[in-house]
């Protein structure tokens, strides 16, 4: 099955991105295809490569590992600007782009799953 993902919350404040990471890894393990992960609103903060939680899970690193498998991770450009998430702050395997990516994921997926409040 082709699955699109959206994450609406940032790191550590909310479980949304953790659940998304676990969901994506579980779906991949079962042979499903992840069309892409769209990071929206505070979700854009999840790809900050300077995230450095002492002794705890590193969320941006987990996303980078998913991106390194060839899965597209896109953070909303406008939301990134609102939050000062400059392109040079982001992990390697993610990029910033517009809502066109969200439309692409909606169109290309059999199911679309949102993580947030």
């Amino acid at each position, binding site marked *: 099955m*082709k699955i699109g993902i*959206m994450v*609406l919350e940032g790191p550590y404040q909310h479980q949304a991105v953790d659940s998304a990471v676990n969901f994506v890894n579980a779906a991949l393990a079962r042979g499903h295809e992840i069309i892409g992960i769209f990071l*929206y*609103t505070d979700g854009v903060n999840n790809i900050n490569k300077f995230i450095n939680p002492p002794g705890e899970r590193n969320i941006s690193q987990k996303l980078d590992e998913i991106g390194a498998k060839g899965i597209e991770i896109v953070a909303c450009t*406008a*939301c990134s600007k609102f939050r000062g998430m400059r392109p040079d702050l982001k992990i390697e395997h993610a990029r910033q782009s*517009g*809502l*066109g990516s*969200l*439309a*692409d994921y*909606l*169109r*290309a*997926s*059999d*199911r*679309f799953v*949102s993580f*947030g*409040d």
Partner: protein
Amino acid sequence: MDNKVVVLLRKAPYGRVYTAEAFRTIMGIAVFEMEICVVFLDDGVFALLKDQDPEKLDMKPLGDGFPMLKDFNVNRFVVHDQSLLDRGLSVNDLVMGVELVGSSQIAEIFDSYKKVLPF
């Protein structure tokens, strides 16, 4: 695979970013020829109230934008009847004409559109 999607508004405007972002999402994906149904549920119905004036919050009013979405070929606006009733509101309090529906019809809409973007 198709281009149909529900954008679901559940929260009151201004206190959180979701109403503004739902609006921006509708504009942003409508230009990519998505067939969008906008559903207003729970406190989401407040997004359509007339005469919103958030000037003292240093924010822009959100309600007036929704009728303009028809220019972007977004033509289906659905409001949950009980959510309006629970808040002492009627369709006369809203900035635009809407499709007023019950809970079972909301469920049918979700089922027929398959994909839902919840805000």
